[in-house]
């Protein structure tokens, strides 16, 4: 399926992902978007080429005297390893997301978080949190701001907020300055992959009380 993607990864995210410094949860959103977006895949490859050029330009640190001999000796015992089977997408879930879910959308263990909205936290390192969000058509996600960065990738349906419309494959990058109320478009339920590096900050009282409970 060819997607008409209008909202892409920025240089900072692609560079950090290429460099390997993003927390796992953000890396998952980047990997999922790149799986859907040929433009960002090409930009990612050029940042990796930049990494290669930087390594090439390194002055080099001297290796131990016996290093080459040790490695050469090790080669005798090591054949050629077969590449692991590449993960495949499962329905609307891009391959990296399907890997974390362990299957397609039917395998997601949703938990209701109020107003028909459901979420499933994915198992990543605790430096940041990744979750799938299910927002019924026409429903708003409670008004919230962010202490850190929030990435939201649309996998199905679409949502709108004060900034724009986000459809399948689109990525919204929200920082602490954005206080927004995403609303799922009428017609189709909206399913997103979101990552946050700090708890969301809800404007209303009740959601804030529930935050620790739901890890949102």
């Amino acid at each position: 399926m060819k997607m008409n993607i209008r909202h892409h990864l920025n240089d900072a995210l692609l560079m950090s992902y290429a460099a390997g410094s993003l927390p796992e949860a953000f890396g998952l959103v980047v990997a999922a978007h790149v799986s859907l977006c040929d433009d960002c895949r090409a930009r990612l490859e050029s940042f990796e080429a930049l990494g290669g050029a930087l390594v090439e330009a390194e002055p080099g640190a001297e290796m131990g005297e016996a290093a080459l001999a040790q490695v050469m000796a090790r080669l005798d015992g090591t054949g050629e390893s077969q590449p692991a089977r590449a993960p495949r997408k499962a329905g609307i879930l891009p391959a990296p997301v399907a890997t974390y879910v362990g299957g397609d959308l039917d395998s997601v263990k949703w938990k209701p978080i109020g107003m028909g909205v459901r979420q499933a936290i994915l198992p990543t390192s605790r430096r940041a949190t990744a979750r799938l969000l299910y927002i019924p058509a026409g429903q708003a996600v409670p008004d919230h701001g962010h202490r850190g960065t929030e990435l939201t990738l649309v996998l199905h349906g679409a949502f709108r907020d004060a900034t724009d419309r986000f459809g399948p494959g689109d990525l919204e990058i929200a920082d602490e300055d954005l206080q927004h109320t995403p609303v799922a478009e009428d017609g189709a339920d909206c399913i997103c992959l979101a990552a946050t590096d700090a708890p969301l900050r809800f404007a209303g009282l009740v959601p804030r009380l529930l935050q620790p409970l739901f890890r949102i």
Partner: protein
Amino acid sequence: MLLEPHTSQFADGRRLLRPYVAQAKGIAVASKGIVALSQEQETDWSALMLAVRDGRDRAAFALLFRHFAPRVKSYLMKSGASAAQAEECAQDVMTTLWQKAGMFDPARASVSTWIFTIARNRMIDMVRRDRRPDPEPAPWDRDAEPDQAEVYAAAEESRALTAALADLPEKQRSLIQRAFYGDLSHSEIALETGLPLGTIKSRIRLALDRLRARLSES
């Protein structure tokens, strides 16, 4: 000159490669014209890597090791590994190069880029103690035989990038380097240099723009 060969950088490799080319049967590709780069008198790391991939050529591996292992080691140390960790890890990375040689595709990446991605993944395990989910492989990754023109274009791009990087003013190059693989976030760079965060971000953007401009000239 943008594409002037970096003679000092490649001097050793060239000296080593000449007798090697004379004896090697491993570089079968030479006869097909891939080694066009040798006109520029630079070591053709791709050809050596193909000799490892297709001929399990140990002499070619040794040349790759001498060039890349020390570079991988200093990359790892700049990313926060201790000297001992970096030494061990650089050896692992080079062993992986031998084991996964079958996955090397000169149409997609230069040897330095491929080695960088292997080293980066080990660094994430070892230094960051985190994981990095990979994208789904592109459909064209499964193509069996790369086009010779693509192989040549990829090598050209890689050389142009190395040249453009070398051509950047030292301050810009070091900023890209630190933003790219120092263990420093932008805010930590700001702390160290005393420059406000907004300035750092715009300077990194400027450095990247300049790099792009250099590349489009070439």
